[in-house]
């Protein structure tokens, strides 16, 4: 199964705060059948977020959780041109990566998420997501860079 699909890409994420934004992306995960219990999953993400906000320098937010309500490792991607405060010191986040990992996931699956996390540190990767004209391009970029590097 794929790490991300076109239905898991939201190019105009227009939410007032990070919790609302997370909910939009999580809803997409639920609609795709990747998350079985939307509220349960959101509670798990929020628990992680409360330990320390997952906003990072460079306009990135990576809400994430290992949760029993997740069926397979999945990425939901959101782009928020106006920016959403994600707790990073240098300003709001414009690229949001909601990473959902199943509680008991096998090593291979988690390795894909590890590879994804590493790509997030690469400027070219971020830029190609930032400039992607449509959801198909986003899926292609992620698949090319992370799944079949």
């Amino acid at each position, binding site marked *: 199964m794929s790490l991300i699909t076109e239905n898991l890409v939201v190019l105009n994420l227009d939410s007032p705060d990070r919790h609302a934004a997370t909910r939009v992306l999580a809803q997409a995960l639920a609609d795709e059948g990747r998350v079985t219990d939307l509220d349960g999953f959101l509670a798990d993400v929020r*628990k992680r977020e409360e330990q320390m906000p*997952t906003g*990072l320098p460079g306009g990135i937010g990576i809400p994430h*959780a*290992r949760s029993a309500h997740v069926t397979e490792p999945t990425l939901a991607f959101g782009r928020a041109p106006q920016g959403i405060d994600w707790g990073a010191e240098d300003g709001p986040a414009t690229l949001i990566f909601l990473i959902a990992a199943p509680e*008991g996931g096998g090593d291979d699956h988690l390795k894909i*998420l*590890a590879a994804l996390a*590493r790509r997030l*540190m690469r400027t070219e990767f971020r830029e190609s997501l930032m400039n992607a004209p449509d959801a198909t391009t986003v899926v292609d970029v992620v698949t090319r860079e992370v799944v079949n590097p």
Partner: protein
Amino acid sequence: MKFVGVTSCPTGIAHTYMAAEGLEQAARAAGHEIEVETQGSAGLEPISPETIAAADAVIFAVGVPVRDRGRFAGKPLVEADVKKAISDGPGLIAQAVAAVEEAQANPEAFAESQAAKPAGSRGGGLVSKVDSSAPVGTRIRQWLMTGVSYMIPFVAAGGILIALGFMVAQLAGGKEGAIVVTKLYALTGPPDPNPTHIINIVTDFNPADGMHWAALLFLVGAASFSFLVPILSGFIAFAIADRPGLAPGIVGGFIASTIGAGFLGGIATGLIGGFVALWISRWKVPKGVRGVMPVVVIPLLSVLITGAALILILGRPLKALTDGLASWLHGLSGANLIVLGIILGLMMAFDMGGPVNKTAYTFATTGLAAAATATGSTNLKVMAAVMAAGMTPPLGLALATTVRRRLFSEAERENGQAAWLLGASFITEGAIPFAAADPLRVIPSCMLGSAFTGGLVMAFGNTLRAPHGGIWVTPLISSPLLYLLAIAIGMVITAAAVIALKAAGPGPVKTELDTAEAVTV
């Protein structure tokens, strides 16, 4: 230069790998080499010892404590939050370069700083799992869990050896074997005047005698058990105060054990010893005294204060408590037997080897001695109820760890496996690791199950002629099937109660035994 690094984060799926990437990019850009060990959830590939040995410095960019930290000892170290490696990898690399240069410029000062580091952060060191920024409730649980995780090997080794001793005694000594093995053998003596029936296993060991082997197992197991409370106490104090906490904690725990204060007393001495040591080690002292602080002043004062506090403050009320409970129990002898069974059950499970448990147990065994001379079937019922009620706590927790693994830490789950055998052998101590780690939820659950079992045994009217032995003395129990039923019911009740309480509250505290797959969200 060559560096090695470790990255980690609470969830283990994102920051860990981003931080590793950040460090690798920064090192490459600055013309250095680095190998990063990602202690996340996608499997752990440890850096080889050769690579570590060849490294000039170590960088920890972590959100949770480094696993097997001792491997990296003796190198210049830069330690930072995991986010630092993501936001400013080059800054961390620069710090590592500076640390190497400083150590090279002034090797003597570096060696001194290495030697002065507390045990928790030094080579092959002991580790405690305490996050100093966590809320107080969490920290208390982390202190307790540190003590518990070091105590568990003593529980497992001692409990299993004792149980094996009973088994062998049952085979070699017949029906009464499990009783005899606890009474007739010792590692010293026989004392003077010579009671000839005590056999000194050191001087008179006979390989052809099965009972001697049973006694050997039993005595080694008992020796291991005598460390439960001191080790628990010592490592609670260690978690609070690092190395200075060990001496007051262990000595305090030993005294708690000696005066019969049980594991609750050991938790108290662990907390007292830890805070006294922490307090003294923070004193501002003149330079001349500073050198003797860790070797003389801190141990001397902290051990004295902890031991004296226990003896002078806790000792007398404890004695009054056990005396009061004992006479109250004797006053109840004429009361309804089922009520008595419930009360004894509650007492057995309350502190598992502590004063309340001992009072109930002593009440039963003295009754047993009286029953040997008189026709005291009531006394035999009391003994049966007490033993059954003492078996359900470990059994109930073993069941709970089997059916709801996720509610327990890895250390607790492993202890749960040994707890089956310990519970079946009437070694209530098998439940202590669970109770010490989470007393407020585990103890009431155990009491509930034991109360049911105690009451049921009385209702069934089982009698028992042995003071110990668990299922290994089944031949000495009347209507054993009903007896086992009473135990099974208590076991299920305890398991259900502990699962319900644990599911409602915060999850298990992780220890170094926990593997990558158990990383918390």
